[in-house]
């Protein structure tokens, strides 16, 4: 477990006690965790810092889970969202076709299952990000920018990918 990459997880659920315990358990397993208790708060957090995986509750007061994950991905296009729902039929959300999430899970979730899915989501994020990054770097080379242009482009990439 020690060679696990540092996975940054953004939790979004209005059920504060749930996040309290969930974050404790995830922190213990060396995840980096940020708990937010509404869609609005999560969006603010995503503007500040980069995350790999978001775990979003479907039903929340204010901005609901569908809208939250849509806006989160606008800010951070590679962020993978796992959507939690109190409804048994995860299919209802799928059928509605509104969501473009990595996975849907019905509450209460099996913790070990959730951890496994967070790791899968992280893997997918890295894959997509890796191939996109390569593409963009190649494009920068092709553009034949000068030193300054190159530096600015790299600065942009830093911002998009959240790499230090």
């Amino acid at each position, binding site marked *: 477990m020690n060679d696990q990459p540092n996975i940054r997880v953004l939790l979004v659920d209005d059920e504060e006690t749930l996040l309290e*315990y969930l974050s404790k358990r995830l922190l213990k397993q060396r995840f980096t965790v940020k708990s937010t208790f509404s869609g609005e708060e999560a969006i603010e957090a995503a503007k500040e810092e980069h995350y790999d995986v978001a775990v979003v509750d479907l039903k929340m007061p204010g901005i609901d889970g569908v809208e939250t994950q849509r806006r989160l991905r606008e800010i951070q296009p590679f962020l993978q969202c796992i959507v939690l729902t*109190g409804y*048994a*039929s995860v*299919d209802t959300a799928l059928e509605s076709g509104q969501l473009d999430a990595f996975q849907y899970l019905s509450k*209460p*979730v099996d*913790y070990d299952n959730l951890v496994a899915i967070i790791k899968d989501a992280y893997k997918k994020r890295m894959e997509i990000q890796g191939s996109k990054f390569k593409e963009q770097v190649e494009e920068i080379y092709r553009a034949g920018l000068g030193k300054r242009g190159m530096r600015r482009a790299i600065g942009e990439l830093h911002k998009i990918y959240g790499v230090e």
Partner: protein
Amino acid sequence: MESNSSLLAELKKLTRDLASHKIELEQARGYLQCILQNSTDMIFATDVDGILLSFSKGGEKVLGYSWEEVAGRRINDFAEDPVSFGHFMASSQEEGSAVALDVHFQHKEGKTIHCHASLMSLTNREGQRVGTVGVCRDITLWKKLQDDLIQVDRLAEIGRIAAGVAHEINNPLAVINEASGWAGEVVGDARGLSSDDRRELEESIEKISAHTRRCSNITHKLLDFARDSATTKREFDIHEVLKETIDFLTPELKHTSIEIDFNFAGGPLSVNSDPRLLEQVFVNFITNAIHAVLEKGGGERRIEIRTIKTNSEAEISVKDNGVGIPEEAQAKIFDLFYTTKPPGKGTGLGLSICQNIVRKLEGDISFESKAGVGSTFTVRIPIS
């Protein structure tokens, strides 16, 4: 001479008029006969004492008796409650006519026939009452449909309420689940606990987790029940689904010495329906059968799965030689939350869900059972 010829003319006119009246009368009689022969309503005429004088073809269909069987009997005797039917007859005679929205007759085979009935008093030229004419429309089917609709409505309402409750409960359940998981980790890391205390804590936490799962199992089944999504139909072989179902249940069958007989119709049994939903029905039927034969204890344990193909339907039945369903429970087995299993073993949802599914697939679900002998559950679904 003149008076003779005018008399003759008058006689001719009279003959002509009579002939035309006769034609009119025949036409009227034919018209009446046509109504009596073809109307699906029960139309009858009685004398003042209620003795049947005429009984339409529709009446023979409605009550199941032929004219020969009812001739000379009193109409009151065919009512479920002859006394109040007598009052109804009397009021029609006093008022000239009377209408009743729901009169109960008894069919030859014993079942109740609901009728919308109107009675008219017959009088002769002198104004004396000579009898009664009745027109009764059989509304039994319509009544049943109405009751079914009320039942479906009520079920849908219960489903909606239950789903709302289940959804609200899932959130606190999720909290309990995470809290107990965390407690487990803390206990695992804790130092200085005596091994007895550690075991006590670990067992308690495991109990909390297990019972949280039990709760979420119920809430999820309820939500499935209430869920009103479109079925996804496709063409598939029912035999394949049945085999998969048995595979799925293999762990349950291990070490039970239950013999499963397949009695399949020849060739594939292709239908255009929803395989996922039907599988849910089969799992329920077969699981119930397994529990029924296990509960019975010793002796030969046998479950037979039979399929029959007709022109328009596929029929699948699961027969067991288990404990059977006591007669007093048979009316309730499709009720939401009705279960005969001990607390914690059954949710009382399985068969309600099956009934709901089969309804959605435009099929039909039925069962036969005898306590101590066994049960057969049958589902019929349209082939396309």
